[in-house]
């Protein structure tokens, strides 16, 4: 048991992202309301973004802003700085996520105009008539 707890604590960022991802996944698959599905999709994406961001952190690392004169004089040790690349990648991923959400929301507006509801059951009922 102690070993199991130690395992969870040592890699807690992974556990958080897995739990968040499963919550999002459940909402996407299990919920019948289309807006809830969309929110689940957002949670799913956010989980992955958090996962990426957490991988850039180093123990004892500082923000990756380098003093130019110090770097020219003696070079720098990369181990002292957090890795900024995952953060930059996630900026792009956030932009992608926002665009997908935007498209999905506008599609939802059209669904509402077409069927008058956003409940999947009711839409399917209307379609089967």
């Amino acid at each position: 048991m102690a070993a199991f707890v130690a395992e969870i604590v040592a890699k807690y960022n992974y556990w958080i992202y897995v739990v968040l991802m499963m919550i999002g996944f459940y909402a996407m698959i299990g919920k019948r309301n289309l807006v809830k599905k969309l929110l689940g999709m957002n949670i799913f994406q956010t989980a992955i973004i958090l996962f990426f961001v957490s991988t850039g952190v180093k123990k004892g690392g500082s923000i990756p802003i380098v003093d130019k004169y110090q770097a020219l004089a003696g070079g720098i040790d990369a181990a002292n700085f957090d890795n900024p690349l995952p953060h930059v990648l996630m900026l792009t991923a956030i932009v992608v996520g926002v665009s997908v959400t935007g498209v999905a929301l506008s599609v939802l507006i059209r669904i509402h105009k077409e069927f008058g509801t956003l409940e999947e059951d009711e839409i399917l009922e209307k379609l089967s008539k």
Partner: protein
Amino acid sequence: MSPTNLHLFVLVVPLLTALAVNLFGRSRRQLIAPLVLGSLSFSLLCAIVVMGRVLNHGTISYTVGNWRPPYGIELVVDPLSAMMMVLVSVVALLASFSALKSVEQELPGREAFFFTLYLILVAGLHGLIVTADAFNLYVLLEITSITTYGLVAMGRGRAVLSSFKYIIMGTIGACFYLLGVGYIYILTGTLNMADIARILPTLNAPVATTTAIAFVLVGLWIKMAFFPLHTWLPNAYSQAPTGAGTLVAPLMTKVTVYLMVRVILNVYTPALVFTHDWVTNGVMWAAAIAIVCGSALALGQKDLRRMLTYIIIAEVGYMVGGVFLANSNGLTGAILHIVNDSLMTLCLFLVVAAIIYRQGSVSLDSLQGIFRRMPITMAAFTLGAFAMIGVPPTCGFFSKWYLILGGIDGGHWEFVIALVVSSLINVILFFRIIELAYFGSLADGEHHEHGSTERHEAPWWMLKPLVITAVLLIVVGFSTGPLINNVISLIIPAGF
């Protein structure tokens, strides 16, 4: 315009023209056709020149913004990607002729929006083909997907609901891919494909590597509608506007299969992917089931376009199976089938577009006696059907031949049997339609609203690309030999 970055123009020209179409096309509709056709023709011309150069002088590598490869984004054009660029340009150009006509009819007043998305989608597909950066690939995958969501949602009635389902499934796929890339980045510290391929085998971290591969492959399988993950495809593709279907159906799944080939060959190296026999066997069985179920579900459809979407699912099974055979014949067949299947699907979807333009429906009932009304269209349909079945000398025969040879080489009999069964089902599927269309009588008591027997052929704008595609099916069939020797054999890794 320097000739060294000609391949960049292949994707930049449609992208910039998309903006021009959106700006000027709204007020002046007559500008849309010349802009779209001009940019796509220019793109095709560049792609052909680039392919010639790659075949003569070897692979081109281009660094965007002059950042050196492991850090900056690299674009690589090797023989396979050059071939794919030509293929995408050809399909996009031919489909655009037909789309210009059908969009005018189906979405009056919204042509500018439609073709903005259309051109961005084409640019995104070209980007997917040339990129050599794992994260860049994710962004481009989402560009193509988002434009497709928009195009599908432009359809009538149920299309918006199908588009929403596609958004959810597509996002799950893209997120899985991104997660796999994250694992790779943690393992190797790089995103450049060649760099990953260099570092990954030296790491000796089998579990993490396998997890990363699994995430990336599942993500791509969702995007390409591999059998158990295919549920979004039939509705989305059959309810999209006809013009969108003609572009999306031949290209999206096939380009994703190309990405899978690229990821397996150039990022992970086959040695790391095909490590566990039970995984390979499992995928082979899934491919076999995909082929049989896709074909069987196609049998149950009452609408030609819906039937074709199920055939697409079966064809994805062909290609995934061919790659996972992990031998030279199987891989040759799979890559050849990417080219052939794009052209065959394009041919059949152009037929669908032409029929819908004339009579508004492609339900099997409405196809009765259509040979008399649209003889040229239906002649092309027959040729496309023969290619799908795999009748020599159409191109479909050759790729199927290689796939079957590969299946025998690898001892995967379930795959061979699935291929043969699916060919037989295709025979039933298509001959049923050809019979209806040729012999279907209109005087059997049932009054039909399209009952006239006078000739009413599709407009020239839709017939020309259709005839060219039908001819291409045979031309590509006859040039299978050169295609394999000059392009495909070059990228098959040693030891296969």
